[in-house]
């Protein structure tokens, strides 16, 4: 088997080598660069879309947050007003109850005083009647018989006893 000289220029070999490099260039372009570039572009697109999604989500979350804060403040104010109103109503009602109670108590006391006064009046009348009765009976007895000192004394005692009994 022969071999080439160490330096031997051959036109066809040069052309073939040139063609080989061109072919390899085309192969690399088609089988390495095209799919990888395509994939990188797809990756970039996906990353972009994810970024925009995240941006949108953040914006909507911020909007919701602001809305909720607003609502919370409104609710707090409302609650305060409700409590104040309720306190006012309760105070008014309580005042009214106390007023009523005081009025009722006054009425009851007046009634009781009236009753007591009437009772005393009646008792006085009763006592007066009694006294009249007793003195009438005493006068009858004194007119009925003669009175001596002893009788007199006994009579008076009897009278007083009678008063005491009554």
């Amino acid at each position, binding site marked *: *088997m*022969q*071999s*080439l*000289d*160490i*330096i*031997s*220029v*051959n*036109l*066809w*070999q*040069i*052309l*073939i*080598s*040139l*063609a*080989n*490099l*061109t*072919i*390899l*260039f085309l*192969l*690399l*372009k088609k*089988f*390495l*660069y095209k*799919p*990888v*570039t*395509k*994939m*990188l572009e*797809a*990756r970039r697109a*996906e990353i972009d879309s994810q970024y925009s999604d995240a941006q949108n989500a953040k914006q909507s979350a911020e909007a919701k947050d602001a809305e909720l804060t607003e609502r919370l403040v409104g609710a707090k104010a409302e609650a305060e007003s409700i409590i104040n109103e309720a306190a006012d109503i309760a105070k008014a009602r309580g005042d009214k109850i106390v007023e009523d109670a005081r009025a009722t108590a006054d009425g009851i006391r007046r009634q009781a005083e009236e009753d007591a006064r009437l009772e005393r009046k009646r008792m006085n009348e009763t006592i007066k009647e009694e006294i009249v009765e007793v003195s009438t009976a005493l006068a009858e007895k004194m007119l009925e018989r003669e009175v001596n000192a002893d009788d007199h004394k006994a009579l008076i005692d009897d009278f007083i006893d009678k008063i005491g009994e009554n």
Partner: protein
Amino acid sequence: MLIGAVAPLVVGIILKVLFTPEKVGISISGALIYFTIPMPLQNLPITESQVNSALVIVTILFLCLYFTHGLTVKAELKRQLVAEWIVKQTQSLVKTNMSDYFSGFAPFVASIMALSAFSSLLSLFGMYPPTSDINIVGGWAILVFILITYYKMKCGPLHYAKSFGDPVPFLAPLNVISEVATPISMAFRHYGNVLSGAVISVLVATGLQGLTNIIFGWLPGFLGNIPFLQIGLPAILSVYFDLFSGCLQAFIFAMLTMLYVASGFPEEDYLARRAKKLARLKK
């Protein structure tokens, strides 16, 4: 697909083993000729370098298919990262060394690097590295020369002709010489580096064998035939010449390609010209 990438190497090694003639003593020669095809002007010998570069192309093709198989946006496979790394590195290399106008150059630079590096690394497997054949590297250099000239011609042939009389018109012959020297120097730089590495390796190995024969030749029996001194030094030389030098030359060739093409292209003139043309078309 990895099998497809490894198979060409196995084929190359088998061919090498089958067809290498028995050597006596030192022999430094070119590639083996498998057969010759008669062609006009010059016969075309199909040599080891032709076959090996074809095998390298097949290997690279299958590696590409392997790395880009099952590409996904989320990069679930580790090998996808290799493909991405290669693409991004070459693209950024082209962007920094050339202008944005040449963004399509990345695959070309990658193919130069891959072809050159893989071809040189074939010598690790004992195969003939096609880069130590002047025809192979010469073909690449001529393609680069065509590219350089194409981009210089972008502003029209007149602009191209004028560029030769650049500083002063009477230096034009020198400019022509330097223009022609570009592909020749590129080809010879690469080819010479790889070939000289192979030559030095052979010389050192042979020399060490002779030295062993002199020093240990007195040992009885087969012991006297073992080349003890060949242990060590040839391995280090192989690491330098086959691995380091091969990759370095590939990188240098690619860098020179980028620099020559980018520096030869009169970008500002071209853009101005194109803008003018567009304006005229609009009218």
